């Protein structure tokens, strides 16, 4: 009977280890918070182009993550991208004239929405819209601009 007790103990430890592993995968590796209902307040921003921005991409201010991209849609009237940001409720003192821009972490990293605080005394609340936005830098356009810029500057034979 001693052998059976030992066996049961080992199996118990094994099952516990497995559960701990899943607990770690849930809490430490992934973000379980996103599973819960979204408590943040919604702010929309319109962009000419969002590049490769995806739903759930972080929204950050001064490098601190303060929310997530909740939804991405297209306004069929203006052909602009409508991005809904979900800002965590504790960051409730963001000036209404803050600007949003789509940035890239690193050269090839993920795209995220960066907020730049303005100076107004009124604060963003649920349903507000960000007026000032800056679209994503599209690499192809950037390169194209550099090439045409280089062609222009050739005439003046001056190099920057």
């Amino acid at each position, binding site marked *: 009977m001693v052998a059976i007790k030992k*066996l*049961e103990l*080992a*199996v118990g*430890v*094994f*099952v516990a*280890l*497995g*559960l*701990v*592993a*899943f607990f*770690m*995968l*849930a809490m*430490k*590796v*992934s*973000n*379980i918070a*996103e*599973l819960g209902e979204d408590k943040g307040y919604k702010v929309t921003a319109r962009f000419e182009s969002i590049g490769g921005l995806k739903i*759930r991409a*972080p929204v950050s201010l001064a490098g601190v*993550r303060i929310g997530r991209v909740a939804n991405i849609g297209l306004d069929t009237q203006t052909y602009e991208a409508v991005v809904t940001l979900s800002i965590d409720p504790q960051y409730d003192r963001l000036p209404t004239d803050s600007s949003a821009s789509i940035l890239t*972490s*690193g*050269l*090839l*990293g*993920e795209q995220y929405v960066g907020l730049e605080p303005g100076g107004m005394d009124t604060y963003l609340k649920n349903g507000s819209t960000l007026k000032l936005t800056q679209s994503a830098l599209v690499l192809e356009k950037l390169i194209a601009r550099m090439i045409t810029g280089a062609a222009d500057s050739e005439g003046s034979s001056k190099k920057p």
Partner: protein
Amino acid sequence: MLESVRRLGRLALRFLQRLGKATLFLLGLLGALAALCKRPGLIVKQLYSLGVLSLPIIAMSGLFVGMVLGLQGYANLVDFGATSTLGTVVALSLVRELGPVLAALLYAARAGSALTAEIGLMKVTEQLACMQMMAVDPFARVFAPRFVAGFIAMPLLAGIFTAIGVLGGYFVAVKQLGVDSGAFWSQMQASVGLVDDVIKGVVIKSIAFGWVANWIAVFEGYDAIPTSEGISLATTRTVVNTALVVLALDFVLTAIFFGV
């Protein structure tokens, strides 16, 4: 020409015949589940030999795979200055693919082959026939407990493999290569989803793999030709077939869950 077409037909027929036999066997297994519920002790015993004894190889392999991912990821990301996304790279590869797949392959080699050999040997030594003559159903007493225990063990092993792999990657990235610890975890958390990656990756995949790996292992033992050569063939078939089926199934599941 005609001969080779005929051979192809014969192969196909034999495959279908075996598949039918395996399906009937599976039905037998499922039919024995009710009887098994009264005897949880049988499952515990098999959980020991299939799960606990597979733990060392799973843990060691997970650690090394995670460490290799950390090194390779770093070597590739450092040129772009994107080493802070190393956590994401390590975790996503493990959670979505490597964790469940490698755990299933290791399980087939470590536990599946042993399962086949054990059942095959029980057949050779007349233990199964003897059990039947004692009015004990081998499905309820031998096959089903092993199948169920393996089915339970597989997701646990895959979870352990993945978690240890992430820790291995952390160790190499943060402790050895100097990636920022906060960035490692926060980047990981930012891009690994609980449902989208952990559940759809490790959990569902390992459940599916556990199903086929144990089905194949127990069936091959049951179907083994009762000679020493027959058993060696059956064990080989277990490992080879499990590997093929797991990889093919992984492709299908990846296409469903992560395909664009």
